């Protein structure tokens, strides 16, 4: 039998890969397809992972489906930028609009563990006011969640992921000490700090989901900087090495290389299970409750594709909001060259941060942004240089010689929701015979103003520390959100505060797509915190008899 995780499922026959030991396995409970399990969770990433683990730990029967492979980081992850494209969702998608989104490495993963297998580990909390951005800050919409409750779930998420962060974080309300100490900063991160000090802004070590000291079977980070192409040491606390092993231990089943194509609903309008493609065939798994956690493109795709006569516009789409309000985050950068050796690729890429403009409201645009130090690997860097600066051949070769002297600052900025930015189904079909998505995106004036503001600020920071040959990368975006907004009413949102769909009472959506607004920080910790809350809410609702199992 082939052991290529991209071709043959690994979680089979009562066992799943032991991610911490080469060639080893851990026992895995398996459920029959005819048995209606309590929960089917589609997607095992930042949202799905914690849900599967928590629900299983609460004693429910749970199966987690993922279209991606079950990797063994110690064996499958090469220190090679090109080979790691295996982690990205690279299935065909159509992109259009005024500013089409480049899909793939920068915004979607496909693996057990989801995008967290190759995410950059930046683990930030929302600014509390963002949960009420309409009421408190005058733009977009409010969330139906209370920030104080979220603060408690952030605590939990940070403990579960052993976030390594500063002793005290300069922005926002008090939070408990991070479970692990911040990592050593150097290279580009130190130049961010010096630049921020010169501007009179606060800076901090970035809270990261990679351990600075051993944790269980995870060794401490070795600072080789391959984080965004998969961490081959297991220092990175992705879902693959945290919640998924917990889920297995608690009796959950994981089905890898299992693409869910359709959610079945019955005459009463309730979900009854999922059709999924695995090992060359379509199967049906019965379930009492279905939770979708496929992220902001695949979640609406699946729900749109599950349309029936009763739900002609797709499941949970009475409001017409499904697929709409897609948001990316602006991810523009400014780069420069230092006289000194920098070696910016050593260590996790975003070791320092300034959230100054997330917490400062004297500005001529809505929303906020932060910026972080950068450390792209050589191929990624040469691609950025050649595409943004149009360099090629000898000129590119010469520029690459400066690699170890390069510094860079990259923003993560809040783009505002718009009904026109959306995901729809196209005519074309993919390898499973499912309609592929059309992703339409255009920046709004507010987005453009913020980007220019950020580029100016980042440039000033680099100028103040004496960087030369400064240039701007103006087109990058990352991190998806929206498309299945959480809200206060069935008319203007897809799910309620508990991530339960308004229309189908046993259908839930719990991933980045439920964000009404996306904030000016990376989203995964918020997704995980919401998933932990949802698990607790499910248990409460079950105890109150408001969920039938």
């Amino acid at each position: 039998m082939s052991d290529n995780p991209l071709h043959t499922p690994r979680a089979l026959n009562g066992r799943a890969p032991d991610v911490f030991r080469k060639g080893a396995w851990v026992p895995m409970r398996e459920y029959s397809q005819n048995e209606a399990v309590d929960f089917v969770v589609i997607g095992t990433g930042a949202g799905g992972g914690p849900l599967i683990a928590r629900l299983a730990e609460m004693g429910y029967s749970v199966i987690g489906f993922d279209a991606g492979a079950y990797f063994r980081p110690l064996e499958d992850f090469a220190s090679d930028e090109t080979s790691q494209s295996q982690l990205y969702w690279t299935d065909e998608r159509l992109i259009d609009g005024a500013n089409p989104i480049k899909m793939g490495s920068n915004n979607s993963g496909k693996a057990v563990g989801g995008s967290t297998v190759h995410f950059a580990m930046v683990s930030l909390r929302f600014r509390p006011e963002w949960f009420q951005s309409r009421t408190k800050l005058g733009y977009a919409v409010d969330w139906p969640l209370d920030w104080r409750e979220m603060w408690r779930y952030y605590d939990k998420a940070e403990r579960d992921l052993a976030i390594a962060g500063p002793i005290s974080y300069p922005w926002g309300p008090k939070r408990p000490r991070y479970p692990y100490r911040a990592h050593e900063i150097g290279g580009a991160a130190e130049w961010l700090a010096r630049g921020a000090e010169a501007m009179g802004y606060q800076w901090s070590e970035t809270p990261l989901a990679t351990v600075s000291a051993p944790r269980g079977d995870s060794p401490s980070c070795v600072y080789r900087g391959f984080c965004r192409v998969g961490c081959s040491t297991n220092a990175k606390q992705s879902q693959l090495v945290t919640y998924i092993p917990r889920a297995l231990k608690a009796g959950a089943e994981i089905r890898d290389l299992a693409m869910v194509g359709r959610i079945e609903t019955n005459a009463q309008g309730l979900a009854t299970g999922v059709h999924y493609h695995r090992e060359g065939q379509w199967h049906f798994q019965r379930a009492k409750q279905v939770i979708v956690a496929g992220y902001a493109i695949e979640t609406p795709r699946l729900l749109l594709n599950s349309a029936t006569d009763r739900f002609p516009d797709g499941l949970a789409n009475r409001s017409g909001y499904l697929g709409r309000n897609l948001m990316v985050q602006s991810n523009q950068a400014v780069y420069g060259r230092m006289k000194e050796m920098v070696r910016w690729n050593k260590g996790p890429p975003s070791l320092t941060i300034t959230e100054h403009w997330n917490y400062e409201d004297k500005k001529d645009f809505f929303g906020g942004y932060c910026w972080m130090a950068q450390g792209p690997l050589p191929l990624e860097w040469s691609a950025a240089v050649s595409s943004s600066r149009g360099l090629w051949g000898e000129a590119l070769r010469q520029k690459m010689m400066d690699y170890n002297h390069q510094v860079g600052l990259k923003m993560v900025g809040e783009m505002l929701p718009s009904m026109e930015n959306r995901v729809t189904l196209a005519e074309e079909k993919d390898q499973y015979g499912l309609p592929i998505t059309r992703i339409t995106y255009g920046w709004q004036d507010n987005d453009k103003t913020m980007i220019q503001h950020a580029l100016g600020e980042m440039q000033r920071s680099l100028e103040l520390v004496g960087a030369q040959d400064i240039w701007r990368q103006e087109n990058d975006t990352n991190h998806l959100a929206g498309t299945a907004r959480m809200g206060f009413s069935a008319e203007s949102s897809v799910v309620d505060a508990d991530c339960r769909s308004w229309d189908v009472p046993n259908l839930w959506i719990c991933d980045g797509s439920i964000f009404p607004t996306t904030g000016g920080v990376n989203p995964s910790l918020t997704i995980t915190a919401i998933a932990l809350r949802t698990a607790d809410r499910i248990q409460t609702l079950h105890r109150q008899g408001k969920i039938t199992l």
Partner: protein
Amino acid sequence: MARYKGPRGAAGWALGLTGALTAACFAAATRGGRMARHPATPPRASEPPPSPEKATLAARRLNRSAGTLAASVLFDSAVEHYRGDFENRAMYTPIVTSALALAVSAHGTFDKSPAAHKIRDGVYLLTGVVGLIGTGFHVWNVVQKPGRFIWQNLFYGAPLGAPMAIGLSGLLGFFSERVRDTPIGQTPRLFGLPAGRVIGAVSGAGMVGTTAEAGLLHFRGSFHDPFMALPVTMPPAAAAALTNASLGAARTDRRLTRWWLRATAIMGVSGTVFHAIGVGRDMDGWRNIQQNLLNGPPIPAPPAFTGLALAGLAALDLMEDDSDV
């Protein structure tokens, strides 16, 4: 990668027991003279005259403790400064001086002559001064970094407390030479004070400083293994007991303090084993020795506690030998 995940079974029990004993020692030390087995000082008249042999023996023990500290610094600074690429030439200095201090300490440990040795004396003085200068260098390194005295720089900048280990080695060695020089018929004195008390107080203070250093670095490691609590609890208890002795009555049989110092000395040496286990827990463990020896917990560092505990024991000897005259 090692499978070690923290204390289980017997190791867990041992840790618990040590913790309980530490607490007991602390309690006893803070309650004052209760740790003495014979609290009453014998009458001056019945006291035997001060013995030069005993002074020399105590001096040799101090040489041994200075040597232990020097050995710890020698290997530790060699590894750490190699890791720092010997960016500044001055980074060779502690290696040279601690090697010299180690050599003269070995000489002193075996030397039974009752008089100070010029070269030993010189090396110890130099070593003490290097400790002070080294501290200056390390402070300078930290203030160059953005944020200056912030946790980040205390954790990862040049360790502020480390150079004082070599300084203490020099100081203890220097004391040892003074004790050896004690004129016949007199009790050993330093700066006009009873030597045992001074050395006891200095070793106690050294232990507190070393605890601070270990505490800082173990905090950096998030105390991820419960054993990491030992070096921040046992030595302060030893320091408290020792300080208690230094301020208490002379010629007292302080058995508990003695045992506690011995236990601390053993803890220091066994720390190397724990650190070796820690190295094994990093990526690829001992197979990746080149990297993990540099980045893992410093194997040579913990015996600094042993050096100081040995000095404390020598100080107890001095205090028990003579009453303060």
